[in-house]
């Protein structure tokens, strides 16, 4: 199980109605269904991922999130989750607004572009960072809207979004005590639990 998913599960209460945006192969939903007896759906556009969700018994709906979530009514879900996908959205701010409209609370995870390695790469090599963790080059990356933890939290302040919980981990999704000394410099992945 992907480690960020391991961390998310503690923030989802048993029996809740969950929507997982860009749910991939349904790993998280499958786990939540089995362990937390949650209901709900994953949204996904990758054909292989969709088939894999169905094979696992995860309810999956083929839907391009970029086309909007307007067909889903307000507060339909207890928790709306989006892992490692906010940075590939055309308008991350609008997606966050929509998530908070259709869900009572949301869990968002994304890579931190303010991590020291990314900063160092740009500062010393003068090039957009490429690493094992961020493997794309600037012209073919799906990550069109990288942000840092500070950027995200600034968005939350501007939009009156309340951050219920936050955790910061390294790229192996491990908590390290020293990350918390300077999260925006030392943390690689952020996991936010937010509500309105």
């Amino acid at each position, binding site marked *: 199980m992907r480690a960020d998913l391991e961390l998310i599960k503690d923030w989802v209460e048993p029996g809740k109605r969950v929507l997982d945006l860009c749910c991939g192969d349904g790993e998280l939903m499958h786990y939540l269904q089995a362990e937390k007896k949650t209901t709900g759906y994953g949204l996904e556009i990758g*054909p292989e991922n*969709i*088939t894999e969700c*169905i*094979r696992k018994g995860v*309810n*999956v*709906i083929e839907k391009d999130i970029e086309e909007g979530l307007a*067909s889903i*009514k307000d507060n339909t879900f207890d928790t709306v989750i989006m892992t490692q996908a906010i940075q590939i959205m055309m308008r991350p701010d609008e997606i966050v607004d929509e998530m908070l409209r259709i869900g009572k609370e949301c869990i968002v995870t994304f890579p931190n572009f303010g991590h020291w390695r990314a900063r160092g790469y740009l500062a010393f090599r003068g090039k957009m960072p490429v690493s094992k963790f961020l493997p794309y080059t600037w012209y073919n990356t799906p990550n069109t809207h990288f942000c840092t933890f500070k950027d995200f939290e600034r968005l939350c302040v501007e939009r009156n979004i309340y951050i219920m919980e936050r955790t910061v981990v390294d790229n192996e999704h491990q908590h390290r005590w020293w990350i918390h000394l300077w999260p925006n410099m030392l943390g690689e992945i952020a996991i936010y639990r937010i509500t309105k």
Partner: protein
Amino acid sequence: MPDVIPDDSVGIVEPQKIEFSEPLKLQCGRTLEQYHLMVETYGELNENCSNAVLICHALSGNHHVAGYHSMEDKKPGWWDSAIGPGKAIDTNKFFVIGLNNLGGCHGSSGPNQINPETGKPYGPDFPIVTVNDWVESQARLADYFGIEQFAAIIGGSLGGMQALQWSINYPDRLRHCMVIAAAPKLSAQNIAFNEVARQAISQDSQFYNGHYYEKDEVPKVGLMLARMLGHITYLSDDGMRNKFGRELRSGQISYDFTPQFEIESYLRYQGERFSTAFDANTYLLMTKALDYFDPAADADGNLSGILEKAKAKFMVISFTTDWRFSPERSQEIVDALVEADRQVSYAEIEAAHGHDAFLIPIPRYLDVFSAYMQQVEADTKAVFFGGNA
């Protein structure tokens, strides 16, 4: 004609005629005192009758869903690509029932069958039947086989509408509902196409107000036109362009009204073949059943409200170039199911074949289909072992 029956075919199959003597009250207010259904089954019904799958047919379908009637058959049943040993609906695991719906023309009680009260064919006097009536007759068919709850009810197009109606009318009698290339109700455009088809038939001089059997005639031209029109709505613009383009049969334009473009002769061929194989009165009935289908009508048009009754898990599938029942129509069903807090999965299959795609073995379609049927099987096993415990 198969020289050898393929390993993944259900093989040579034989239809059976099942008689029902309990009167069936129809939605139109009339009653069928007695009726019969033509049925084919494939696979074995298990001990606790938990592995049954019902296949509902579309406008021109029938009970011959898979396999061959004889070694002389040119083609297998209409959904042979999905049903057979090792196929998406695996007949090694499931007991599959196909039937010809009431009002059909392939052996079930319908306009071309003898009315026991008059000794003559029903003709236009056969009552108007609706999707609700079909569901009721199919429920009695399930009783006949001793099936309390279907593992799945599956259908494409008008067949998908029957599956959807089942989930509302008999929520406890199906665990899974597969609705393919369907819509929650017809649009004005859909009804318009149906009306042109009906007019083509009823205006044919050989139609005799539906009493053509006695005259030993068939409204061939009308049926042919109806089918040609229908066929255009089953294909996509892209699909037609790819298959026929503006190809000429003889390589040059002849400046007259003979069929010169490939698409013209294709439609004529399809229409002509259909006009000798299908009954005009049945065509009228089937299109009416389509027009009248509207499960939300009983809930003031609130589809999600009516779907709250359903208990089945749903799999909804649409095809990108289907414009008869477009992906948006399937999404209406999905949205209503989400709003009703029902379990649903949805896949939109990229396909150039238009509405016809639901009958075509497109790899991704079959992958999704097979994956879903694995879940149906898992739930069937759970019921089986649960029942023995």
